[in-house]
C-alpha cells in the first residue's frame, strides 16, 4: 500500500496531483467542520440572490442586505437583553428569547431592504445594478453610523447560539464519524442551510412556484400571457429572498460574536453572488460553490498550519498566500468567462418588466 502510494507520488507532475489529493484527504477531518459554518452565510446570501435573479432581478445588493440584517439582529437581541429577557438557559442550541427575537428581526430587516430593492427595480424600474449599489452604500453607511451612535451606550451582549453536540460514539465512528460531526456539530442557522438548500432545489425544479419563477425569469411576457402576475411574483420572490439575507446576517452576528461590527460582512455578499454564478443559478450549485470557496480558504490555512510534506509542500508554500485568498474570485471569473463551462444568467435578468395597468 505504502509502496503504491510512494510510486504514485513520484510520477512527474501527475504525482503532484496524487500528493495533492492525499493531502486534501488527510486534512479533511480537521477542516471539514468549518466548511459548513463558514459557507452558511455565503450560501444563504446566494439563496437570496437566487430568489431575485431566477425571477429576473439582478441583485448585487446582497452584501448590504446581509449587513443590515446583521446589525438589526444584534441590536434587537441586545434590546431584549436590556429589557430584562434572560440570556442563556437550557433550550436547544442555547436559543434564548433575545437570540430568537434577533433572528426574527434579521429576517424582517432583510425583507424590508428587499422590499426597497423590489420597489426600485419592479415598480420604479430603476436600473437593477444601481439599486443594488444604493443598498450596499446606504447599508454600510447607515449601520456604521447607527452602530457608532448606539455603542456609546455600551449595549449588552446577547451571546450566541450554541452548537449541536454530536454524541461521542457517533463522532468516533470510523470513516464517517468525522463527516457526520462536520455536518451536525453546528449552530442552528448554519444547520438550517442544508434543509433550505435541498428544499429550494426541489421547490425550484419541482413545484408550481418554481416553474413560474423560472418562466418569469426567462420570458416574463410569456408568463404574463398565461395568466401569471409577473409583477406580483417578482415582488414576492424578491421580498422573500430577503429572509435568506436576513438569516445570513443573523448567522454572522449571532453565531459567532453576539454583536455587530461595522462592515462585518467583509465582502461575503459578493462572494455569495459569485457562488450563485459559479453554481449556475441553482441552490445546490450555489451551495457547492460556497463550500468550494470556503474549502479553498481552509486549504490556504491548512497549508500554513500543517504544510504538506515533500515536493508538493515546497510548491504550495512557495505560492504567496494571497493567491489562495484571491482564488474564489479568480475561479468565478474563469467560470463566468466560460473557460471551463459557461454559466449564463436567466435570460430576462436585468430587464425591467412593463405592463399596462388600468388606472
Amino acid at each position, binding site marked *: 500500500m505504502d509502496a503504491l502510494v510512494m510510486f504514485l507520488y513520484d510520477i512527474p507532475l501527475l504525482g503532484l496531483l496524487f500528493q495533492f489529493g492525499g493531502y486534501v484527504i488527510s486534512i479533511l477531518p480537521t477542516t471539514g467542520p468549518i466548511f459548513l459554518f463558514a459557507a452558511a452565510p455565503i450560501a444563504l446570501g446566494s439563496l437570496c440572490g437566487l430568489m431575485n435573479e431566477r425571477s429576473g432581478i439582478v441583485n448585487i445588493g446582497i452584501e448590504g442586505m446581509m449587513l443590515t440584517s446583521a446589525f438589526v439582529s444584534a441590536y434587537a437581541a441586545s434590546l431584549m437583553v436590556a429589557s430584562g429577557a434572560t440570556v442563556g438557559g437550557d433550550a436547544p442550541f442555547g436559543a434564548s428569547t433575545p437570540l430568537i427575537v434577533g433572528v426574527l428581526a434579521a429576517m424582517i430587516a432583510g425583507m424590508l431592504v428587499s422590499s426597497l430593492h423590489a420597489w426600485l427595480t419592479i415598480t420604479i424600474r430603476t436600473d437593477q445594478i444601481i439599486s443594488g449599489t*444604493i443598498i450596499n452604500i446606504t447599508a454600510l453607511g*447607515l449601520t*456604521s*453610523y447607527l452602530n457608532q451612535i448606539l455603542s*456609546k451606550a455600551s449595549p449588552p451582549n446577547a451571546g450566541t447560539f450554541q452548537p449541536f453536540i454530536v454524541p461521542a460514539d457517533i463522532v468516533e465512528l470510523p470513516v464517517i464519524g468525522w463527516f457526520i460531526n462536520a455536518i451536525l456539530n453546528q449552530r442552528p442557522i448554519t444547520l438550517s442551510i442544508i434543509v433550505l438548500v435541498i428544499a429550494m432545489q426541489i421547490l425550484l425544479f419541482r413545484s408550481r412556484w418554481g416553474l413560474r419563477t423560472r418562466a418569469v425569469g426567462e420570458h416574463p411576457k410569456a408568463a404574463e400571457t398565461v395568466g401569471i402576475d409577473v409583477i406580483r411574483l417578482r415582488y414576492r420572490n424578491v421580498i422573500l429572498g430577503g429572509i435568506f439575507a436576513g438569516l445570513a446576517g443573523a448567522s454572522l452576528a449571532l453565531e459567532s460574536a453576539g454583536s455587530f461590527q461595522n462592515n462585518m460582512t467583509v465582502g461575503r455578499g459578493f462572494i455569495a453572488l459569485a457562488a450563485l454564478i459559479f453554481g449556475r443559478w441553482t441552490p445546490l450549485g450555489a451551495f457547492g460553490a460556497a463550500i468550494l470557496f470556503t474549502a479553498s480558504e481552509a486549504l490556504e490555512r491548512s497549508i500554513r498550519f500543517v504544510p504538506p510534506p515533500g515536493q508538493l509542500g515546497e510548491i504550495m508554500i512557495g505560492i*504567496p498566500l494571497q493567491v489562495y485568498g484571491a482564488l474564489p474570485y479568480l475561479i468565478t471569473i474563469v467560470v463566468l*468567462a466560460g473557460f471551463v463551462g459557461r454559466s449564463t*444568467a436567466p435570460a430576462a435578468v*436585468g430587464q425591467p418588466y412593463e405592463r399596462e395597468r388600468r388606472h
Partner: protein
Amino acid sequence: MTGPAGEPTNQPVPPAEEAEAVEAADGARAASALRRAWALVVVPLGAVILAMLVGSIVILASQVFIGVEIDPTLPLVAYWAMISGGLGSFNGIVETMVQATPLVLAGLAVGVGFKAGLFNIGAQGQFLMGALAAAYVGGQLRDQPALVAVSLAVAAGAFGGLVYGFIPGALKALTGAHEVVTTIMLNFVAISISSYFVSGPLRAPRSPFAQTLDVGNAELIVLFGRNGHVGIFFALLAVPIIWWLLWRAKLGFEIRTVGANPDAARFAGMRPRRLIALTMALCGMLAGLAGSGEILGRVGHLTAPYATNVGFDAITVALLGRANPVGILFSALLLGMMKAGAGQMQIQAGIPVEIVDVIQGLILLFLAAEIIVRRLFRIREARVGLEELATVTRSYGERSA
C-alpha cells in the same frame, strides 16, 4: 415624386411640441441644449437636497435611539460645519479640491464606462493597481530628477490601471463575461495583489510596517495652499479632454454608439468588442491616474492595508453627474466638499463620519427613484437619464457578446 405628405396614417394625435416644430435649426439647437442642461441638472439637485433632508432626519432620529434629549438644530450645526469646513476658508477650499481630485478621475472612469454601456464597478481595483504601480516606479526613481521621476511614476500609475481595466474589458469582449461581476471580483483580487507586493517584494527596507519606499522626487509638487498639489490640474484637465473625446472625437462617437446600441455600432462598421476592451482600458487608466495622484500627491507611499473608498464614491459621482464630464466634475466637488468638511462636522457636531456615506446612498436613492424628486419639486421635464444603462443590464442576462 409624391411624398407621403397628404397621407395621414392612423390619424396621429398631434403632439403638443409639433406646433412649435419648425424653427431655425440653430435656434432649436441652442434652446434644446439649454433645456437639456436644465433637465440634466434639476433632478440631481433635487436629489441632493432631499438626501440632505432625510439625512437630517436620520441625525435627529438617532438621538432618540440613544435617549439623549433631542437637539433640533443638530443637523443644521452638522451641515453648517461640513460646508464651512469644506468651503469656509482658503485651506478648506484647497482641501475640497484635493479630495475631489481622485473622485473626478475615478468618476470619469465610471462615467466613460457608462457611455459605452459598461458598468465599471472596478474603479476601486484599478485605483489600487494604479497606486501600486505609481508607488513602485516612484520609489525606484525617488532620486532621479523630479520631472523624470514624476512623469514616469504617473505614467506607470496610468498604465497599471489601464492593464487592470483592460482585463475585464477583454473578458467581456472575448467571452461575454459581464463586467459587473468580473470587476467586483477583481476588486478583491486587487487587494490581494497589492498586499502581496507591499508586504513582500516592494516593502521598503528598514520600514517597521508594510509600506513601499517613499516616492521622494516623484512627489507631486504643491502649487498652492497647504496641499494643493499639481494632481488637481490632471483632474481639471481630464474633464475637457474626456468631454472632447466623447463629443468631438471619432472614438467618442464610437464609444457612445456602442453604449447606446451595440448592434447598430456593428452595422456601422465599428468593432464593439474592441471598443469595449479599449473603453475599459481607458476607464482603468483614469482610475489608475487617480491612484497615482493619491500616492504621489498625498501619501508618498503605498501601505499594505490601503484604506480608500474612491472606487465606490466614483459610482456616486458618475451617477450624480449623469456620466457627463462636467457633471462629474461638479459631483466630485460636492462629494469632495463633504469629505473635506467631514472632520469639522465630527468636531463641531459630534456626528459620526459615516453620515457622509448615508447621504451618498440617499442621493443615489433619490436619483434612482427620481419620480419622488419630480413629484416633490413638481418637475415635468422628460426623463433625461442614462440610456446606456439599459445596455448594461440588458447584457447581464444575454448569452455571450
